[in-house]
């Protein structure tokens, strides 16, 4: 068993992780990213997919 000792967060990182206003902005950003990717995934165009499948 290994005990990790890498990249422990600093006090400032811990502060930002719990700072409500900043986290609210992150929440909006992350939700937007998830919803945008789920609803409009950056797919290849349908004909590209078909071309690729018939390669």
């Amino acid at each position, binding site marked *: *068993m290994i005990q*990790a000792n890498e990249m*422990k967060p600093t006090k400032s990182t811990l502060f*930002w992780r719990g700072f409500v206003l900043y*986290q609210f902005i992150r929440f909006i950003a*992350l939700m937007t990213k998830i919803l945008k*990717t*789920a609803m409009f995934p950056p797919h*290849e165009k349908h004909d590209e997919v078909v071309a690729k499948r018939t390669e």
Partner: protein
Amino acid sequence: MTRVVILGAGFAGQTAALYLRKELGKDDTVTVVAPFSYFTYYPSLVWVGVGRMSEDRPIFDLEPVYKRHGIQFKKGWAREVYPDQQEVMMEKENGETERVPYDYLVNATGPYLNFEGTPGLGPHGGYTQSICTIGHAKQCRDAYLEQIQRMEKGEQVNIVIGTGHGMSTCQGAALEYITNLHRDLLRRKVRDKAKIMWLSNEPRLGDLGVGGISARSRGYIMDSETFAKSLYAEQDIYYQTQSAVTGVEQGKIHWENYEGEQGETEFDFAMLIPQFKGRPIRYVDAEGNDITGKMTNPLGFTLVDGGYGKPWGEINDKDWPSTYQSPVYKNIFAAGIAFAPPGSISKPFVNKNGTNITSVAPRTGMASGITGKIVAYNILDMIQGKEPTHREALSGMPGACIASIDKSTWNGSAATIIMYPVAPNFRRYPEYGRDLNITSMEIGLAGAWMKRLLHTGFIYKMKGLPGWTMIPE
């Protein structure tokens, strides 16, 4: 009149049933066959397992939902499929069997939890806990609370969380459990009484069965291994990867690693995810021959339109199934965990003793919902006399793993990992296999809110309440 039969009422089956019912005509029937009349929102079982959520919150009764939507429900286990006769044989609670006819069949039966694959594993006569069903999560919570009592009396306790087989998957759920457990022990002021250990089959920490993740972070490309090490350093969690649990006895976990070394880890409480297999359903042809081997892979997952049989290094984005249609019987589909992936995403490994230590590809909740929807629309295509036109492969599908660290509204936190696509696509993204504009990893309160929102949003969608189609899978 078209009869669609869906086996399973989980993420994939429920999604398929709701979309099919929405699109099909009044004369057509949608029938769900499942052994339990409730839906389980699995991601919230981690909270049940540490006693932070009551057991009734992640589940809801399906019967009122089906009544409202006009979906037929048959309670029982699908045991056999007769593809030539287009019938499913199901076994009811009282042992009686019934044949259910279909024109189109969807296998969305999820995983078979193979505790037998590891002697001594699991809550049914074994020595470890699981959070893979609501019953297991309750049992796990009770066992955990017993340990809390010991710690409160001042005793020292060893806790092991991870995977219980060389070929387990779903490391994300175990990661979430370990971080919640750490936080719960802190809250109860007994964290110093526990040594928490992560034991897994991953090739490296943070692999999560998806070959690890790379994301931009403050001017660098950060790897999920660094991310996970940082998390474990912060939470004082010990770890060991590249290990297959080969057996468990009272207080002792036996394992083997990549080098072929065998060892033991002592524990007082362990939650280990078993190997997932396909549900044992037999396929029988018109002559009465067992054709299960033609319909499923050796682990029992249904073969669909994937590029199967290639060695790991040669599997590429095109090999991931995208229509989920059986190549043998065109009116049979599989969605969610039930479909067979072309191989693992993580690098497979067999040690010198012949033990397979490979993180099997996860098929997450999001992927299960998406495949359920794709299958529904492909069946609609076929009803209209067309070939399936809807395609969505894991190599083009997003995934989100929100490993909550605490669910509290103001003091909570979560490690949010977003990836696109789930299965790396090196043809489109040659350097890292994933789109770095989308893929991200971060920790903070925002993740805890997202996790709460997903719980509410998904349950709302799965209940088919007004506007459910607006909520993406």
